[in-house]
């Protein structure tokens, strides 16, 4: 099977000075759930921005759906087929909801995506209502997005992406800043979307959710290179690796019982990270 995203030796440098990614080679297949793990500033968000064609590699190549992604294709006001189909297929959940929400009402916000993709108004109306019903945010639909609470904003952000029905979801710290109940709700939603066959790529440093929402994990180190690209269980079991990537700390670790009492993955729910090195 051909990968949908293919990164070949991709590097990214901000302002020619600050390196954010170095020599990243990875590919993603359709229907995969991948977690990109890394400490703050390791370059996970940059990686997602490249996958969403919002940033372009300083060196190296990025192929999406078999086509080379170049700035000339995307950074233009002219309509072109690839740009349009890419935007339709890929949805990006930003880390900061305030960036993602810019319309005057929640309804307009959710309708924005399908409208840009030139769907007929009746279809837009229908889709928007469906997504609103699916996420249970009927009570918010006439409110202004910037007046909502953090959890509500996140829901609206997710709704605004789902309304275009993308095949690939790029999530940047999806559970960041959410209360426990909203986190569980989001995890269950991601699990449901995964069951529908969506490709889900999540950047996070929240190790508690990794095994619940992904089967493969990529660890980006603080040197901006990929350290490991493997299945989730083996990455999560490798304490030295996680310690080195600054994802766990000797004084802050997973406490099996506390964690697993509330979260329920539908696979591997009995796995524990518990070693003599973490006390």
């Amino acid at each position, binding site marked *: 099977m051909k990968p949908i995203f293919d990164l070949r030796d991709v590097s990214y440098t901000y302002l020619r000075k600050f390196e954010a990614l170095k020599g990243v080679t990875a590919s993603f297949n359709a229907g995969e759930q991948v977690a990109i793990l890394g400490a703050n500033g390791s370059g996970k968000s940059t990686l997602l921005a490249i996958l969403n064609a919002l940033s372009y590699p300083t060196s190296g190549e990025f192929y999406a759906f078999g086509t080379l992604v170049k700035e000339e294709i995307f950074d233009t006001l002219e309509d072109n087929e690839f740009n349009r189909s890419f935007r339709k297929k890929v949805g990006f959940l*930003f880390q900061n909801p305030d*960036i993602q929400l*810019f319309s005057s009402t929640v309804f307009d916000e959710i*309708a*924005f*995506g399908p409208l*840009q993709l030139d769907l007929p108004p009746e279809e*837009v109306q229908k889709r928007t209502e469906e997504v609103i019903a699916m996420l249970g945010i009927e009570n918010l639909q006439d409110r202004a997005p910037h007046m909502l609470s953090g959890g509500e904003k996140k829901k609206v952000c997710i709704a605004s992406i789902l309304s275009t029905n993308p095949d690939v979801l790029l999530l940047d710290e999806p559970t960041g800043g959410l209360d426990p109940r909203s986190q569980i709700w989001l995890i269950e939603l991601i699990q449901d979307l995964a069951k529908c066959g969506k490709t889900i790529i999540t950047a996070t440093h929240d190790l508690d959710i990794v095994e619940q929402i992904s089967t493969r994990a990529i660890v980006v180190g603080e040197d901006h290179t990929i350290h490991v690209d493997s299945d989730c269980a083996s990455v999560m079991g490798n304490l030295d690796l996680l310690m080195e990537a600054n994802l766990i700390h000797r004084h802050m670790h997973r406490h099996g019982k506390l964690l697993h009492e509330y979260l329920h993955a539908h696979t591997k729910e009995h796995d524990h990270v518990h070693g003599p090195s973490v006390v």
Partner: protein
Amino acid sequence: MIEEQKWVGGRVGYTLIKSLNMSEKVHGAMISRGFNGDIKIMHRYSIHRRDYVACVSVVALSIFLMLASQNLIRI
């Protein structure tokens, strides 16, 4: 005195940089959802009778106020 102005200037500049940064990101978010420079909206706006009524009353009120201010009509 000059120190104070420097400080204020610095804050103003910094606020401007922050807003530019933010607007760039918001633009990125719009692009990510398929925005390509054309504004597409759902509602078709058209002129209703109430719009004509509003228009006429605003013009009438301004004329009345102008006449009143020139003492051409007495209230």
